[in-house]
């Protein structure tokens, strides 16, 4: 944090014109964490049983008046909120890393085929794994993790020739992802109705029904991968300057890139393995973070983590409260009255317009 101190000293002489979020970054970070805490409370509060904030806090500290409150809050809603937060954080960090490494503002965590590979592995397991019904909480994330990492490795190897070129990596990832999703579609032909319903929730990404089992598989990966990602910020900062400059400074470019890609893949695969392929969140979060705190990776990475976590839990709140039956009533379309959206659908629908604006406005960066 030495850099921040020097900045404060110089501020006495020259007025610091940088935005608040950059000048007082630690404070800003703390404030954002506060916002996340509020979102968690809100997330727990809404649903078929509405709680007041007081009731939630009481239930959390084991002082609830009604044992049912404690059960709902502790057993169902808290784990779901935590899973959403951590998965969002992982996707955000992965997106920030990939956007930096590939110098491509459109990069997203699914870029190296990680999401599609993870989903494919999970779908294979659901369709062919014998008698998977109750105990899949622990196995499925593991399967998804392996699938995602396999796809990432494949992409890396296929794009390798005398080192990797970031753009070639992206395009190879597109092809690998395409193949994985094609096979996923093929497997659906063998799936029965119940399996199809489960599979589709993985392909779109969903946090519904995530309980402590899922949390227990998610947090170890997060505990390993998020620090790795944050620590590698220095590497990413140098890499951002371009391969030749980085090489000139003395960085072992290929190794640094491999390390960062590994971290990003691990983060993505871990998140996808638990909540499925939630789209766009990992693209938008880092983008907004860059808008707020600028391109310095040491600020960008933590900010992306927090912002994307907030986005995912925010989308999940929307997903839980929105029912879209009214669209059907207004337009006369065939939408079941009780239909809720999985969080992945919400992020896609919210992210799409944002993304298009981004694409057409950022002339210089493309």
């Amino acid at each position: 944090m030495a850099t921040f101190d020097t900045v404060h000293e110089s501020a006495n002489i020259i007025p610091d014109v940088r935005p608040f979020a950059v000048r007082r970054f630690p404070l800003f970070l703390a404030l954002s964490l506060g916002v996340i805490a509020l979102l968690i409370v809100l997330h727990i509060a809404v649903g078929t049983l509405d709680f007041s904030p007081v009731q939630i806090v009481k239930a959390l500290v084991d002082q609830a008046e009604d044992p049912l409150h404690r059960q709902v809050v502790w057993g169902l809603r808290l784990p779901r909120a935590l899973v959403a937060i951590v998965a969002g954080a992982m996707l955000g960090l992965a997106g920030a890393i990939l956007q930096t490494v590939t110098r491509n503002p459109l990069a997203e965590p699914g870029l190296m085929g990680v999401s599609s590979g993870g989903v494919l592995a999970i779908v294979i397991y659901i369709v062919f794994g014998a008698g998977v019904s109750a105990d899949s909480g622990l196995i499925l994330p593991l399967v998804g993790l392996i699938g995602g990492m396999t796809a990432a490795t494949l992409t890396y190897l296929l794009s390798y020739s005398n080192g990797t070129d970031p753009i070639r990596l992206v395009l190879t990832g597109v092809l690998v992802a395409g193949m994985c999703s094609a096979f996923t579609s093929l497997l659906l032909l063998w799936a029965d109705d119940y399996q199809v319903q489960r599979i589709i929730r993985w392909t779109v990404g969903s946090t519904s029904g995530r309980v402590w089992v899922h949390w227990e598989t998610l947090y170890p990966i997060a505990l390993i991968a998020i620090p790795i990602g944050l620590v590698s910020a220095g590497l990413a900062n140098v890499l951002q300057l371009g391969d030749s400059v980085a090489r000139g400074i003395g960085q072992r470019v290929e190794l640094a890139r491999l390390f960062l890609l590994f971290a990003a893949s691990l983060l993505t695969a871990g998140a996808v393995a638990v909540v499925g392929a939630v789209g766009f969140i990992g693209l938008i979060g880092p983008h907004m973070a860059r808008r707020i705190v600028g391109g310095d990776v040491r600020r960008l990475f933590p900010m992306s983590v927090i912002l994307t976590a907030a986005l995912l839990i925010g989308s999940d709140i929307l997903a839980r409260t929105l029912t879209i039956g009214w669209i059907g009533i207004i337009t006369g379309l065939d939408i079941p009255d009780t239909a809720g959206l999985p969080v992945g659908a919400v992020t896609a629908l919210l992210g799409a317009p944002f993304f298009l604006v981004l694409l057409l406005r950022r002339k210089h960066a493309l």
Partner: protein
Amino acid sequence: MQVSATLSPPMSPGDRRPARLSRVGVVALVLLTALFSIGVLALMLGITAVSAEEVLRIVFTDGGERVPRIVIWEVRLPRFLLGALAGAALAVAGAMLQDALNNELAEPGLLGVSTGASLIVAVVVIFNIAVPFGMLPVLALIGGLAVGGVILLATRITRDPVRMILIGAALGALFSALITAVIVLGSPDEIRVLYSYLVGSLIGRDWDDVRLALPWIAAALPIALCFGRPLNLLQLGDDMAEGLGLPVFRTRTLIFTVAIALQAAVVAVAGPIGFIALLAPHMVRGLLATTDARQVLPISALVGAVLLTSADLLARELFSPAELPVGLITIGIGSPIALFLLRRLFIRRTA
């Protein structure tokens, strides 16, 4: 095939034209023969196997036994014809996009255009929107054009072919996310059908589908073949084409519209079958040893038809009696080749 003398094809000296013309003729003849033989094979093979003579008798005369006759006329012939039509349309669309963007990786799938078209079809199916069957290609066209419009705007931002594909890929990702968001609302049966459709499939297509696609393709294909000359100019690069008097942006918009119309007709009946549009033009340029669009376009149509019908034959027979969606075959074969093309593009870019 008409080769006018107004502009000699780029990279080919004019004095070799007679030889090249006969080469085009030979290639066309070979391809037509191949298409015919695949057709006969496609009509022969299946659960009710029919001999070759019987096939010819059934197709070209009134003769033949009743059951094979029904199988061939009602099931296998429409499917084969649709495959040939779709293959031709895809290949020509791909050849046009590649030249128009000066980008050898341009393909409706990789540019996100077919995903945009599929989104509309998915919405129609999931929400049971009552549209006349014949309107489906129009709707697919609107979806495709929306993405095409974004790509066109992007051509004003960047001219780098690789960046262009990145934008297309991102658009594709965007639309597939939207597709999944829509599909989630469907019943398991709808989901299964849509997923198989989204890979691209000719399973169970009949005369209705041929009737749906035929007018579109019959109208758009000849128009497409007329674009040989502007495409040749665009190959020279925007500045050169502009200098030679071509209104670049307007022409490119027109070419996009025709190419996307071809693609949309295919998407409406068979789904976004991948990689035919990428591979066929490349094969043709190799076969003819020229990049002259006036020759590449018509031969691409033939190659596309041969490729798609043989891929569909494979999809039918590989795990017979179970049928695969043909898109799976084209993706399985196409992805590695696309990877190879990508590698070549990068070597050229750094050189």
